[in-house]
């Protein structure tokens, strides 16, 4: 203790120097336009660099899990490739059409920023217009839907997470084909609501929910979750359905941006019909 005090006394000049110098620099940066610009610029560069480094370090530690996930996904894809043409889920002719002329292509992207604790959550991905990403593309992982790209810059794109109050995903009940919008109303990141399922539909608890493919953003058949609870509110013509989702949005590292090759064509056609009617 005595030694420490002695050391402090010995260093007092230096400490006072450091403190006053820190005050001076904060004054310089606060009250002088030029220096402030240099400072903000440098700090931005530095934090950008730091964030990139920390992200890459963090990714390094996640490599094991990531590898496992990729291997799993690879096997799934190989499975699908092997069984192409005899896929029971899709009618045979669409399977052929898909093989001859692919409708969707997938671009893999790293998640460099993610949030799950707000009502409006966003995800930043490290692919942008340079890589061919367009706004309103879907973002998926192997275990579900992640979000929808909202804005694209040269190197990055920002997606609205499915955990966003305004995110609507066109969903359907697997093998029963009743469809409706899947929305996020709860405060739980695993609970979603499926709406517009008529009360005469033979839908039961435990049924799997998947993307319908009606929107141009997502291919059909991506698993979204299972029906956890369902009930009928009195006076309503529709079921109230709570869906438990599988997507692990809280430790997302890697995702695929969906590109629908015929998106423009389909949308133009649909729009032309609508504008004709108006």
């Amino acid at each position, binding site marked *: 203790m005595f030694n420490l005090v002695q050391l402090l006394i010995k260093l007092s000049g230096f400490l006072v120097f450091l403190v006053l110098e820190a*005050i001076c620099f904060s004054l310089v940066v606060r*009250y002088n336009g030029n220096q402030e610009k240099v400072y903000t610029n440098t700090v931005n560069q530095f934090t950008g660099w730091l964030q990139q480094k920390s992200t890459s370090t963090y990714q390094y530690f996640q490599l094991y899990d990531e590898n496992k996930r990729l291997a799993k996904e690879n096997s799934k894809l190989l499975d699908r490739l092997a069984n192409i043409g005899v896929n029971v889920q899709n009618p045979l002719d669409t399977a052929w059409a898909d093989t001859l002329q692919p409708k969707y292509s997938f671009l893999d992207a790293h998640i460099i920023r993610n949030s799950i604790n707000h009502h409006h959550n966003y995800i930043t991905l490290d692919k942008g217009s340079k890589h061919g990403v367009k706004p309103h593309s879907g973002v998926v992982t192997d275990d579900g839907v992640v979000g929808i790209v909202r804005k694209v810059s040269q190197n990055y794109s920002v997606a609205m997470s499915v955990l966003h109050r305004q995110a609507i995903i066109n969903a359907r009940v697997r093998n029963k084909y009743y469809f409706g919008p899947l929305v996020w109303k709860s405060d739980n990141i695993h609970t979603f609501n499926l709406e517009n399922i008529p009360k005469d539909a033979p839908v039961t608890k435990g049924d799997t929910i998947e993307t319908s493919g009606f929107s141009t953003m997502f291919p059909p058949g991506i698993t979204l979750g299972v029906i956890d609870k369902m009930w009928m509110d009195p006076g309503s013509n529709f079921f109230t359905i709570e869906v438990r989702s599988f997507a692990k949005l809280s430790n997302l590292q890697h995702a695929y941006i969906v590109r629908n090759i015929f998106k423009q064509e389909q949308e133009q056609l649909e729009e032309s019909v609508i504008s004709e009617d108006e």
Partner: protein
Amino acid sequence: MNNTIVTNILRFVGLVLLQGLVFKNIGVGWETFPYLHIIVFPIFILLLPLRTPKTLVIFLGFVIGLSVDFLYDTLGVHASAAVFTGFVRSLVLRMFEPRGGYNMAYSPTIARMGLGWFLQYSSILMFTHIFFYYSVEAFTFVYIVDILIKTFVSFFASMVFIMIFQLLLNQNE
């Protein structure tokens, strides 16, 4: 004792006014030659009595730098340089300590320490001060060549004025 304090207070006020009201305008007046900037106020730090504790030297450097900054409207720029000079002063003093040690009662003036000693002492401190000042003014070492040219030119000009100042006020230390 009291006499020393009064002298230093007068020197403080005089140098701040001289720097902020006279030399500031000389710099501005020579707009075509912006490399020259005469800085004399650090002589206050240089001439503080030898017995002044080093933390007090640094703090007084901060105060006079900030006062000059208020007149220059560059809050913090002169102050940071003056704080640095106050810090370096004790190191330079230790470096140039005469064999018999200092007579702590006095200020390190030409009359006490001799012209050669004072020239070395003041050149090192003034050079570091002016270099630090221009570095903070640019706030980046991208323009290091500019900073060095400005430092050299201003250093020689300032040294001339500091020597004049010393020789003029030598008698009544």
